[in-house]
């Protein structure tokens, strides 16, 4: 018998600052839409809406799926501190 997980309920938050997003979804991955960027070359934005969140990187993509058609561009960010060490890669 194949068990399937229920589809995550779609939601869209009110516009939030990055500090508010980090407080609401600590140490999680989030998908953001309607990102009100301050400029192109850094992460700074005034507000954005959250359409997905979760502990695994792929979680917010699944939750954000219903919003793909309306929002061509989505942000995918981690709200916690990036953990070390990073492996040295050689190809």
């Amino acid at each position, binding site marked *: 018998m194949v068990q399937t997980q229920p589809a995550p309920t779609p939601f869209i938050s009110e516009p939030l600052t990055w500090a508010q997003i980090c407080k609401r979804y600590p140490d999680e991955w989030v998908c953001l839409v309607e990102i009100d960027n301050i400029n192109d070359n850094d992460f700074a934005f005034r507000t954005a809406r959250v359409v997905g969140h979760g502990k695994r990187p792929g979680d917010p993509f699944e939750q954000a799926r219903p919003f793909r058609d309306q929002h061509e*561009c989505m*942000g995918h960010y981690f709200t916690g501190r*990036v953990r070390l060490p990073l492996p040295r890669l*050689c190809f």
Partner: protein
Amino acid sequence: MQITKFDLERDLIIVPARIWGRSGSRMLSLVLDTGSASTVIAPQVVKDIGYDPRDRIALTTVRSALGKEHGYTLKIARFAALGFVFTDFEVNVFDLATGYDIDGLVGLSFLRNFDYEVRSIVGKISVRPAVTDPFSP
């Protein structure tokens, strides 16, 4: 010249990037890594913009401190970072080990197109297109 700021409080140099695929674009945070030959993107990201392992150019093996890992190379429609955009840009799609909370790496496959300077005291990266030295042999 393009200037990109980065957060001095973080343990790694993390820069904003954007990739475009068949089903939209994603804004990501990538680690600037001059020790990586390739630019690396996590599989769940390329999947979400409409790519599939069947779109690969080649299978790859990545040797890291953790051992051998398998990935593949892929040409994505557009890739933007540090103020510059490339079309049909080749990336290595590779699952960075669990516990690394980033979407990938900006490696030398991107950086070798530029002269760049990382100013760690002020948290800025300045980038300009590489110009061939007319006096070099």
